[in-house]
């Protein structure tokens, strides 16, 4: 037998050994090329192909009304993005995008933005965010190179415009921009997570590893009651259609706890399309618009007179003149009146009487009561952008500033006035209004609100509540009267300052009504404000009080508050002894 390295075999063996050596060197060199020289790039490519490190967006918390009805919820939606191939020219890439123009309704502006990004060789370009599922399906069917879908969340408001100003709205990235969406953004948004998806050569996922669990946002329960909110909005809408007011607001609250049951505003917007197209639509008139309240502010004058000025119910005021000069400004009554008792001044809403009362108690006492009720400060309602209102310090009052007694030279929000009316409803407590039902979130409970120190003595509050009750039974608030229920309330009609003519207009008014019902054991309190009602009826008693009545009737029926039984009227008749002549 010949050995492997015998003479005849040696050249062939050497040749084989050489080939093997070359192959080995080549293979080794290739390995060095893969594993050392291009290690980073190739590893990245492998990882990109076999693993996906994905950011997991947290689900934004759902917003419910006080009865658990959905007001806002985040639902999955697909977003289209373009990840262009590097080898393609920008114009070729643009052609791919243009194929989606009709399907996605891309505007020229949007196309121009995409074109600019393509020219900059941007590797990731959003084409359209949060499209509807049908369009997403059609895009997948088109199978365009470089076009991908990414799942995101889209905020949905199923009740559309209902409670829009309370809910606010979110931006394209689901961040709160207004209302409770902004106020409680941190609570609602949650925390982003990360997960690793392992894929095979065919890009099928076979394992998902959670690197960081996404923490969903907390759900939020509001004090808003969907039904009461709907009643308030529909009645406000009706009223504006009838009286032609520029805007209107209605706030309904539980006076004992301060929980806001409804905030209705007109004009309104759809939070599904936030921000609103018309800027004024986004203003929450209940807290973000200040105005001179007019006669509804007399509730403060009345409180100051009884609590600080020691004015008795039996005192009388001569209002026969029908007008009075305050620091050179003439103040008139809405009708000629006689000598009025203290309660009658407020029942009939006499401006002259209220000014005389203010003169009697002095501006210091009046100012003290205004500050006791925290005018010029935020109420602390848990909604963003609340206005302070304007309340000048006593040191800068002019002679005419005593007109504050009738609601001029002071600027307030609707919620501030309602909060003060709640003082009479609660027999002396100044409760903080809130829209979140979660006590931990809002920082104060309804029970704590009921234990707040009294800002008004129970006696004063009760006696004034009785006067406001009479204002509805026999005074300017008569149109608010509701069969079976006692309502305590106060009307307000403020002339608006006209910038064009440089004085108060006799044609432009702000009509309001504030009150609570039932007067003896209030279930709800409410303020109705209508700006610039048109036509013959422009007074608070004429346009705002009926809105209060209609809303109260429906809300009380919904809350199953039974009307008072009618007093049995005993009709007695004597049998006439017929003795005709």
């Amino acid at each position, binding site marked *: 037998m010949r050995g492997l390295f015998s003479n005849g075999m040696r050249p062939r063996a050497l040749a084989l050994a050489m080939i093997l050596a070359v192959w080995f060197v080549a293979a080794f060199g290739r390995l060095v090329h893969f594993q050392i020289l291009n290690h980073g790039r190739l590893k990245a490519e492998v990882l990109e192909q076999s693993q996906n490190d994905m950011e997991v967006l947290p689900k934004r918390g759902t917003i419910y009304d006080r009865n658990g009805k*959905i007001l806002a919820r985040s639902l999955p939606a697909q977003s289209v993005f373009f990840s262009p191939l590097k080898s393609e020219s920008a114009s070729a890439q643009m052609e791919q995008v243009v194929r989606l123009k009709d399907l996605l309704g891309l505007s020229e502006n949007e196309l121009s933005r995409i074109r600019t990004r393509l020219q900059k060789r941007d590797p990731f370009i959003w084409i359209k965010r949060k499209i509807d599922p049908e369009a997403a399906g059609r895009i997948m069917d088109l199978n365009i190179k470089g076009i991908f879908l990414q799942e995101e969340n889209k905020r*949905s408001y199923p009740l559309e415009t209902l409670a829009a100003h309370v809910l606010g709205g979110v931006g394209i990235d689901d961040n709160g921009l207004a209302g409770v969406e902004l106020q409680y953004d941190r609570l609602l948004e949650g925390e982003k997570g990360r997960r690793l998806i392992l894929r095979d050569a065919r890009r099928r996922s076979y394992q998902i590893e959670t690197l960081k669990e996404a923490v969903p946002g907390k759900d939020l329960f509001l004090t808003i009651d969907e039904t009461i909110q*709907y009643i308030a909005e529909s009645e406000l809408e009706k009223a504006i259609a009838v009286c032609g007011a520029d805007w209107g607001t209605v706030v309904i609250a539980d006076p004992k706890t301060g929980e806001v049951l409804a905030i209705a505003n007109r004009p309104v917007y759809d939070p599904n399309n936030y921000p609103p197209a018309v800027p004024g639509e986004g203003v929450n008139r209940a807290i973000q618009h200040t105005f001179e309240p007019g006669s509804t502010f007399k509730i403060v004058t009345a409180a100051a007179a009884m609590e600080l000025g020691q004015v008795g119910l039996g005192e009388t005021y001569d209002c026969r003149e029908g007008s009075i000069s305050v620091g050179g400004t003439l103040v008139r009554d809405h009708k000629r009146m006689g000598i009025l008792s203290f309660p009658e001044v407020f029942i009939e809403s006499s401006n002259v009487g209220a000014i005389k009362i203010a003169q009697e108690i002095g501006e210091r006492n009046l100012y003290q009561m205004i500050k006791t009720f925290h005018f010029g400060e935020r109420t602390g309602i848990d909604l963003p952008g609340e206005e302070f209102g304007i309340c000048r310090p006593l040191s800068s009052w002019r002679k005419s500033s005593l007109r504050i007694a009738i609601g001029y030279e002071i600027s307030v929000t609707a919620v501030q006035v309602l909060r003060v009316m709640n003082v009479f409803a609660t027999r002396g407590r100044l409760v903080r209004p809130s829209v979140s039902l979660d006590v931990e979130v809002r920082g104060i409970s309804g029970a704590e609100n009921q234990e707040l120190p009294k800002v008004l003595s129970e006696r004063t509050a009760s006696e004034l509540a009785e006067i406001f009750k009479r204002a509805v039974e026999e005074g300017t608030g008569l149109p608010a009267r509701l069969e079976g229920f006692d309502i305590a309330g106060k009307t307000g009609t403020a002339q608006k300052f006209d910038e064009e003519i440089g004085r108060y207009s006799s044609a432009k008014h702000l009509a309001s009504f504030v009150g609570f019902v039932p007067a003896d054991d209030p279930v709800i309190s409410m303020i109705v404000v209508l700006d610039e009602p048109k036509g013959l009826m422009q007074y608070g008693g004429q346009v705002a009080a009926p809105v209060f009545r209609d809303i109260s009737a429906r809300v009380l029926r919904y809350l*199953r508050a039974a*009307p008072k039984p009618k007093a*049995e009227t005993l009709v007695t008749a004597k049998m006439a002894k017929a003795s005709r002549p």
Partner: protein
Amino acid sequence: MVNRKYDPKEIALGAAFLLFLLVIVTFYILYQSEAIQLGYRIAGLEDRVTRMKEEIKKLETKKAGLLSLRRVEGIAREGLGLTDPKPGQVLYEGVDLPREKKRP
């Protein structure tokens, strides 16, 4: 060079060992393959569960929209011709409201 004669027992032992190794390897491959297949199925099912949950939420939200009071009132008034109850038509439980006296 002398060829060694293998003992049949040794050959059988070797074959058995190879067979055992083959079985082990086959089992391991099958196990791995099955695990991966199960991984696909679990991932698919998890994805389906997530989608179903989302679908439920979507339907709940749609239901909330369909039950919106504006829509319901519209159907009640315009579609069904319903109207608000008159004061005497609302009955309150546990409240003794005076009834209209019947004339003798």
